[in-house]
């Protein structure tokens, strides 16, 4: 039936409703003329109108006794799996801890709700599970198999004992800076592996990140976001946009809220929200209702993270703020870029082995200060006069320089992120003082001259050595340890 035909049927039907029986038929005959299908259709509808009783007259009701997927009991055997206990309920259904008889290992067994079980949805689930199973990374919970057991669907995956970041946050307390930085790095690295394989997570949130009891982080439910109930409509028969958006409003990128399927850039946004919330303990777009959160995600910028936690390393703060940009093109293109941005920061933390040489250099130079002071004192004993002034110069300068170097060593030990600024601040002073010591020793050496050739040569050698150590050796050990080319580069 075309739209025009329908309007005709509707009009005739509506007018017939108001007329009494005998007139009506005659009237319809006149109206419909020789259009037999039209006449038949209208009469058929009228007949069903009369027979319909109270069909649909009572509004639909919401009934309690929610359906529940039958639960599996401990000890029950499903295919090759023996249920050990129920671990919880996820968006898709119940999750069990089970043992896999074939390989003798523990698995997490996710029962997929029966409403996800028609054939088109199974195919889709199979595709997603296959994609997720292709991801092998220590930071991603491994999917082992999608099992179809007696008509029920199960996803078997790596069993991880630990706590989600959501649970960690619920226990209160802000994570330490070290923990924040490491958590961001681990998640970004795992996510980068997935993005490199062309797979987006689509629903990053603290509930989907698990910290195993051995401390390793694992991202859960990769690629399964669009199978959550909120998005079932998308897979349904009808062209309805309802719930077409998977994911969780508070962690969805603006473009995702607008109905675009999640991609790597949306994950980058989710990563930003997740890290912000984890580090600060407050959601960057917090509001009292989901609609309010969605409004803030779309319209208002989050407070810069440094305004909430000022002690955060600058690099991490900048990364998170950039992840939260409204426009996808202004964010990192994928988690791989986040990893690279964060790794610029690793140059700040001395690379362990090379840093040892940097430390050794500091200690040796401090030793040389002592030798220089003793030498200057000996020369003062020999010569007196201007040698006393030189001894005082060397002694005071060596003390000052040693204090600064000690300070740097201490900073490197207890406050690595603070080392670079301290180093830059003290560099001109140590440079000046070192050169002053070298110069004073040089004068001492000249003063001894031919009257005491051996001490004179030794003193001059010490002077030249100190100057070379400061001007040539130290810049290169520092550059090797901290990845810088010159002390003035920033």
């Amino acid at each position, binding site marked *: *039936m075309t*739209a025009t035909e*329908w309007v005709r049927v*509707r009009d005739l*039907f*509506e007018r017939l*409703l108001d007329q009494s029986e005998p007139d009506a038929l005659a009237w319809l005959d006149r109206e419909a003329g020789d259009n037999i299908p039209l006449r038949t259709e209208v009469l*058929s*509808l*009228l007949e*069903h*109108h009369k*027979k*319909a*009783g*109270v*069909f*649909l*007259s*009572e*509004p*639909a*009701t*919401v*009934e*309690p*006794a*929610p*359906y529940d997927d039958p639960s599996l009991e401990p000890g029950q055997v499903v295919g090759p799996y023996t249920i050990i206990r129920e671990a919880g309920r996820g968006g898709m259904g119940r999750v069990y801890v089970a043992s896999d008889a074939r390989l003798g290992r523990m698995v997490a067994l996710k029962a997929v*709700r*029966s*409403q996800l079980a*028609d054939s*088109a949805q199974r195919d889709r689930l199979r595709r997603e599970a296959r994609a997720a199973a292709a991801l092998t990374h220590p930071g991603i919970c491994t999917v082992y198999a999608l099992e179809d057991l007696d008509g029920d669907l199960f996803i078997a995956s790596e069993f991880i004992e630990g706590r989600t970041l959501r649970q960690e946050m619920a226990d209160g307390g802000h994570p330490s800076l070290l923990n924040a930085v490491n958590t961001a790095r681990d998640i970004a690295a795992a996510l980068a592996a997935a993005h490199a394989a062309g797979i987006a997570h689509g629903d990053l949130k603290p509930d989907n990140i698990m910290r195993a009891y051995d401390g390793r982080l694992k991202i859960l439910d990769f690629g399964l976001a669009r199978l959550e*109930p*909120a998005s*079932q*409509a998308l897979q349904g*028969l*009808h*062209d*309805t*946009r*309802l*719930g*077409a*958006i998977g994911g969780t*409003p508070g962690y969805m990128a603006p473009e995702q*809220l*607008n*109905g675009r399927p999640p991609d790597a850039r949306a994950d980058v946004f989710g990563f930003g929200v997740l890290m912000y919330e984890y580090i600060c303990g407050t959601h960057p777009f917090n*509001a*009292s*209702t*989901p*609609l*309010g959160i*969605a*409004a803030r995600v*779309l319209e208002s910028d989050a407070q810069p993270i440094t305004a909430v936690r000022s002690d955060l390393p600058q690099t991490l703060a900048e990364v998170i703020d950039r992840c939260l940009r409204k426009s996808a093109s202004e964010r990192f293109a994928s988690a791989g870029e986040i990893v690279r941005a964060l790794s610029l920061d690793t140059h700040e933390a001395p690379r362990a082995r090379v840093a040892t040489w940097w430390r050794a250099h500091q200690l040796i130079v401090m030793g040389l200060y002592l030798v220089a002071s003793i030498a200057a004192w000996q020369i003062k004993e020999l010569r007196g006069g201007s040698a006393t002034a030189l001894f005082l110069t060397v002694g005071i300068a060596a003390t000052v320089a040693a204090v600064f170097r000690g300070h740097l060593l201490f900073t490197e030990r207890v406050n690595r992120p603070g080392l670079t600024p301290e180093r830059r601040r003290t560099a001109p002073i140590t440079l000046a003082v070192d050169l002053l010591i070298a110069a004073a020793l040089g004068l001492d050496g000249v003063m001894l001259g031919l009257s005491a050739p051996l001490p004179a040569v030794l003193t001059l050698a010490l002077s030249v050595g100190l100057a070379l150590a400061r001007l040539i050796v130290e810049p290169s050990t520092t550059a090797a340890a901290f990845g810088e080319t010159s002390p003035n580069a920033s």
Partner: protein
Amino acid sequence: MAPNDAVFETVVYGELRRLAAAYMRRERPGQTLQPTALVHEVYMRLAKTEPAWTDRNHFLGIAARSMRQILVDRARARGAQKRWAGMDRVTLTESLVGAGHDDAMLPALDEALSRLEQLDPEQARIIELRYFIGLSVEEAADALTMSPATLKRRWALARAWLFRELSRDPAPSQS
């Protein structure tokens, strides 16, 4: 900037779903809840926090659509199609004309409604407002900006059309 429909739908749908689930846990089996109450509560919440976003008629349309989705999904989850397909003709007709709400027919109703929607979207809106969120003739007419008399006639037509569809084909289409 007002939210676009996709955002609004997602939020309304989510809120209704959440509230419905909360109610269903609280009530004892056998008791039922009118969707009207749920819809009203969601409206009050949204109107309080985001007044600029909540045009009442627009909201009702989306809430009705969401409620249809929620109830149909729940019925599917309870295996409604199987029960529906298993009914003999007499039981089927009884359950259609009977006063009681039977969620076994919801998936079939939903499919028929989608076919009707293609013919005339307004017909589907009327069913959603009247049946799925229980608006009165006057309220529904108001939401669709038509006269109550017109709405009443169109409602009768939609009901007749759907009744014919459902009594004609007891087996749900294969999906």
